[in-house]
């Protein structure tokens, strides 16, 4: 899931007639001051980062004057919120709040259905509210084929005690939000808080919208608003990670996901999914320290394997390469071998001084073995287990670097 920045999600829900506060984006303190001056009323300043809990991290501030807005914006622009540097600040109309509510639409993975969570207490973490005041919260599952019916939206808020104009407005907003959620393949659409103002209007004061990466091709209009691949990371992608996304995207065949570790000295290319987890555990168990984590699978072409190998080895501090897959069902080992060997030879690595250990068994592995061994690479097939191969990799590192030091 890629999260949209708040101004993007607000624009989308506003297009669907959900009321949102007036808002502008500022990239400098001066811009924020100018906006505040022109608006002429108190504003909220929010760090534009794709993560929640901004209030807790001091990334939401209030300003009454242009000078205040400038100073606070400059302060926000110097921050990093949960690994995300703040490049822009959302300047928003400050609402006159009477009540704060909560509403979200997401998928209940256990029940395998869309679920609406609504509460007449907002601005808080919903996980906490569930524990503390379960009577002030409603969780309603929706039939994915028939969708949310207007009466269901109404019942949710009525059960929570709303009535009159507020009930009608909140129900209408929820109905529209569900529509947005389905139409844009949202993984989550959360409004926290949904605000009742002192003048009796219901307004979406803060929004979080995450879009399912797998559905990206259905929503060309969201291009540029969602960072694909960002859903797999707790921090912004590093430069090398972005390069590897490009290597992967250059050809649709085979999959590769690259994640950089802090430190480590073993470049690591491993089987997609489960096999990679097992390999990583096994390296750690034997005292190894992976520098990165590259899951590859399917049938990547030689060019992709070559590009990935070069990327893996280009991370500073990498002093060895471990390539290990589980016995594959369909990946061609000879193609993998050609890509890896080409990269190693081009960089000028001598496997005598820079350990390269491979454990690959599967389609065309006889030919793969020949290619690896011709390049002096330590090769194992289905004669050893993954754990044994990991142990031998770590031993090889110790051997080579003990000799050299």
């Amino acid at each position, binding site marked *: 899931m890629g999260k949209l920045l708040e101004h993007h999600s607000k624009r989308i829900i506003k297009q669907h007639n959900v009321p949102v506060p007036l808002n502008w984006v500022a990239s400098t303190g001066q811009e924020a001051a100018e906006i505040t001056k022109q608006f002429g009323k108190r504003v909220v300043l929010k760090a534009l980062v794709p993560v929640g809990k901004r209030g807790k991290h001091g990334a939401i501030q209030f300003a009454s004057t242009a000078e205040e807005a400038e100073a606070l914006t400059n302060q926000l622009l110097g921050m990093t919120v949960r690994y995300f540097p703040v490049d822009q600040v959302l300047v928003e109309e400050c609402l006159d709040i009477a009540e704060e509510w909560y509403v979200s639409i997401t*998928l209940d*993975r*256990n029940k*395998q*259905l*869309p679920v609406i969570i609504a509460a007449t207490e907002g601005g808080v973490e919903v996980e906490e509210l569930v524990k503390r005041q379960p009577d002030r919260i409603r969780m309603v599952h929706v*039939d*994915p*084929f028939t969708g949310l019916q207007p009466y269901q939206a109404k019942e949710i808020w009525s059960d929570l005690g709303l009535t009159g104009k507020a009930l009608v407005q909140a129900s209408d907003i929820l109905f529209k939000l569900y529509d947005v959620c*389905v139409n844009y*393949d949202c*993984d989550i659409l959360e409004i926290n808080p949904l605000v009742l103002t002192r003048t009796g209007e219901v307004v979406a004061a803060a929004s979080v919208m995450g879009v*399912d*990466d*797998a*559905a990206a*091709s*259905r929503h060309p209009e969201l291009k540029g608003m969602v960072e694909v691949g960002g*859903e*797999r*990371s*707790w*921090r912004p992608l590093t430069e090398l990670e972005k390069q590897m996304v490009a290597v992967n995207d250059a050809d649709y065949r085979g999959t590769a996901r690259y*994640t950089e570790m802090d430190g480590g000295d073993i470049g690591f290319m491993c*089987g*997609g*999914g*489960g*096999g*990679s*987890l*097992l390999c*990583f*555990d*096994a390296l*750690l*168990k034997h005292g190894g320290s992976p520098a990165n*984590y590259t*899951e590859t*699978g399917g049938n990547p072409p030689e060019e992709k394997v070559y590009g990935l190998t070069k990327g893996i080895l280009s991370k500073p501090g990498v002093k060895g390469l471990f390539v290990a*897959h*589980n*016995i*594959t*069902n*369909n990946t061609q080992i000879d193609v993998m071998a050609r890509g890896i060997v080409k990269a190693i030879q081009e960089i000028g690595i001598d496997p005598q001084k820079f350990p390269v250990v491979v454990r690959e*068994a*599967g*389609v065309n592995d006889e030919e793969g073995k020949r290619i690896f061994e011709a390049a002096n690479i330590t090769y194992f097939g*289905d004669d050893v*287990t*993954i*754990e*044994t191969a990991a142990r031998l990799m770590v031993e090889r590192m110790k051997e080579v670097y003990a000799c050299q030091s």
Partner: protein
Amino acid sequence: MSILVGPDTRIVVQGITGREAQMVVKHSLDYGTSLSAGVTPGKKGQSVHGIPVYDTVKEAVLQHGVNTSLVVVPPLFVLDAVLEAIAHGIRLIVVTSENIPQMDTVKMLAAARQAGVRIIGPNTVGLISPKHRIKLGSIGGDNPERCFVPGSIGVISRSGGMTAETSWMIKRAGFGVSTSIGIGGDALIGSNIAQLLELFESDPETSAVVTFSEPGTAFEEGAAEFVKQGKFTKPLISYIAGRFTEQMPEGTVFGHAGAMISGEFGRPSVKMRKLREAGAHVIDHYDDMIDVLQRTLRLN
């Protein structure tokens, strides 16, 4: 017997003319699996490795009485393909495609539940029963015998590749498999571990089950509860990969899309504890599987 497939299985391949599907068909036929028909809209009259192609599942059912479907279509077409199979009385659907939009998956699983149809996957390598030489999906590739030999152990794996590796470990230990199933790496799948344990429990030719798991989801927690309630009584040997992920910041995803840890939920250590408490043989190191299998099965 084996679970899910057997002598009565009559298979249709939806999306049979695709590149991936053609390879799977070739490997399956080479292995000895009988395939009845294929479906690709607009390609009626063609054939793939001798298997006749139809435009609709309806025709394949009328002509060949197919009851099982292997779905190998691009992600955005999966929902419709599955709804079509359900509408025409297919009872078992194996969905290999990955990267299906979640909202589509939710719809397809809801439709299957309502119709009482069993789905394996999506994002699965498929399943194999060596005794009947039936394989559905890319499982085993061009050389299923390397890993999958007939025997009495059931395999349930969240990872496709590890379905093969785990079955190979079983072969190394001197045993074979009754049915090996990759359940799929996504958080949203049709058949979870507990549901398949239920089938293995009533299969007289399965004497034990080995599971391979990953972080994320509540499948192992659900399986532990199932065993605890006495609904699965055969030896259960479990390995859970990815313990290192517990040291990483929350929200990181390694392995499959389903492998996300959030709070206490989905942690390998919690899964291991719950399975152990339920009486499963939870192994700490993958290589221990061979010893544990030999000890456990000799005792029985």
